[in-house]
C-alpha cells in the first residue's frame, strides 16, 4: 500500500528556489534514505512534508489524501500521520524526558494522562532510557536527548517518521546508540524517510536511496545501485567522496 506520494514538489525561501520538481513514492513499511551534499534541500524536503514551509508547487498525498498545507485541518491531519526528528533534538528544555514524550498526546490529543504516561514509559524503555524519565534535557547526553526526541515523535503514533540527520550533532561514540534505536524501528516495519550521512547505516537499513543535489532528485535506486553502480556523474562524485572518508 502506498503511504506517501510526493509529486513535482517545489519550495523556496523567499525568491530562492530550494526544491524543484521532487518526485518520490514511499510504500508502507518502506525505508527511503535521502542523501546529498549539504545545502541540497534534504532538510527543506522534510520541512515541507510536515508543513513548516509551504510548497510553491506540486502535491503531497498521505495515505491517499491530498494535503492542502494551507488548511488547518489538513495540517493537523498531516502532523498526526507524519512525525519528524531534527538534527538538534529540539527537546523542550523546561520539561523532563517523560513530559517531553507525554505533552503532545495529553495536550494536543487530550488523551487520559495515566494511559499516556504508561505508554511514554514503555516508549522511553524501548529507546533504552527507562531510568531517565525524570531527567531534564540538560542532564542528558546528546545521544540520550536524541532518543527522547525519537520517543516523543513516536508518542503520536505516526505512520511515517522523518529523521533529519539525527546523528550529525552527536559525538562519534554516541552515534551507535541512536542508530540502534532506528534499527529497532526498522525491524518493526516503521515507514521512514531518513536523511543521513552515515553511509554504512544507510546501505544497511534503506530499501531505497534518493540522491539529491541543488534541490533536485538526481537518482533513486536500491542502496547497492546508488553506492556501487551510480548512473549520474554527480552521484558518482558524491558517493566516491563520502565513502573515502
Amino acid at each position: 500500500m502506498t503511504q506517501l506520494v510526493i509529486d513535482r514538489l517545489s519550495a523556496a525561501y523567499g525568491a530562492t528556489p530550494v526544491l524543484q520538481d521532487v518526485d518520490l513514492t514511499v510504500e508502507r513499511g518502506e525505508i527511503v534514505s535521502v542523501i546529498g551534499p549539504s545545502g541540497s534541500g534534504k532538510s527543506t524536503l522534510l520541512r515541507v512534508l510536515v508543513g513548516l514551509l509551504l510548497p510553491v508547487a506540486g502535491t503531497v498525498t498521505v495515505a491517499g489524501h491530498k494535503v492542502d498545507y494551507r488548511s488547518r485541518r489538513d495540517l493537523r491531519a498531516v502532523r498526526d500521520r507524519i512525525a519528524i526528528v531534527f538534527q538538534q533534538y529540539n527537546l523542550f528544555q523546561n520539561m523532563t524526558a517523560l513530559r517531553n514524550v507525554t505533552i503532545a498526546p495529553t495536550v494536543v490529543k487530550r488523551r487520559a494522562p495515566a494511559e499516556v504516561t504508561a505508554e511514554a514509559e514503555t516508549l522511553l524503555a524501548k529507546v533504552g532510557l527507562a531510568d531517565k524519565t525524570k531527567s531534564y534535557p540538560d542532564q542528558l547526553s546528546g545521544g540520550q536527548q536524541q532518543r527522547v526526541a525519537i520517543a516523543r515523535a513516536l508518542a503520536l503514533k505516526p505512520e511515517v517518521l522523518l529523521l533529519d540527520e539525527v546523528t550529525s550533532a552527536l559525538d562519534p561514540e554516541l552515534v551507535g546508540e541512536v542508530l540502534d534505536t532506528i534499527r529497532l524501528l526498522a525491524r518493526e516495519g516503521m515507514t521512514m524517510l531518513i536523511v543521513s550521512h552515515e553511509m554504512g547505516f544507510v546501505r544497511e537499513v534503506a530499501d531505497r536511496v534518493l540522491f539529491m543535489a541543488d534541490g533536485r532528485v538526481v537518482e533513486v535506486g536500491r542502496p547497492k545501485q546508488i553506492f556501487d553502480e551510480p548512473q549520474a556523474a554527480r552521484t558518482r562524485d558524491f558517493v566516491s567522496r563520502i565513502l573515502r572518508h
Partner: protein
Amino acid sequence: MAYTLQFGQVTPYLWYMAGGAWIALQLAGIAFLFGWAIGLVFAAVSEYGRGPLRWAVRGYVIFILNTPLLVQIFFIYFALPDVGILLGSYEAVAIGMALNASAYLTEIQRAGFRSLRRQELDAAETIGFSRVQTIRYVVLPHIVKVLFPPLSNQYIILTMTTSIAAIFGVEELTGRAYNINAETFRSLEIFSIAALYYVVLTFVASTVLYWIGHYFFRVQGKVF
C-alpha cells in the same frame, strides 16, 4: 576615638524604622510591577514592532537610560505642576521609579525574546501545538527561566534605590533614619541600623526569589 555606642537611645525608634522599611518595600514593589509590565510591552514592541510606534518606544527607552533617575523625579515633582499635574511626593517617586525601571526592564526582557530557540518552536509546531499552547508550554517557561535572575537583580537594585525618596520628604527607611538622627544625633547607631534593615530587605527578597526560581523554573545559580 571616644565614641561610645549607645544603641539604647535608638531602640525606641526600631519599630518606627521598620515602618520605613515597609514603605521602601512598597515603593520597590510598585516600581518593579509597573516597570515590569510596561517593560514587557515595550520589549515586545522593540523586538517585533515597526514604524513610528517602535521609534517612539526606542526613543523613550534611550532617553530614560541616559538621564539620572533623580532628575527624572525632580521633573515629575517640580516641573509637571507647571502644566497642571500636581503629585504628592510619594506618588512622584513611585511614578519616577516605575518609569525609570521600565526602561531597564525593557532591555532585559528584549533579551528574553531573543533567546527563544527557533528549534523548540519548530518542534512545538510539528507535534501539533496551537499558537496559544506553544506560548503556554514553550515560550513562557523559557522566557521566565532566562529572565528570572536579571529580573531578580533589578528588584534588589530598586529596593536600594527607594532611599532616593528621602530627598522628597517621603518618610521611608532612609527618611526616617534621617529624622531620628536630627533628634538624637546617634548617627553611627541609626545609620548602621538603617543599613541592616536594607540588608534584611534585600536578603529576604534574594532568598525568596532564589527558591522560587530554583523550584519552579529550574534556574541555576546562587543567592549571592
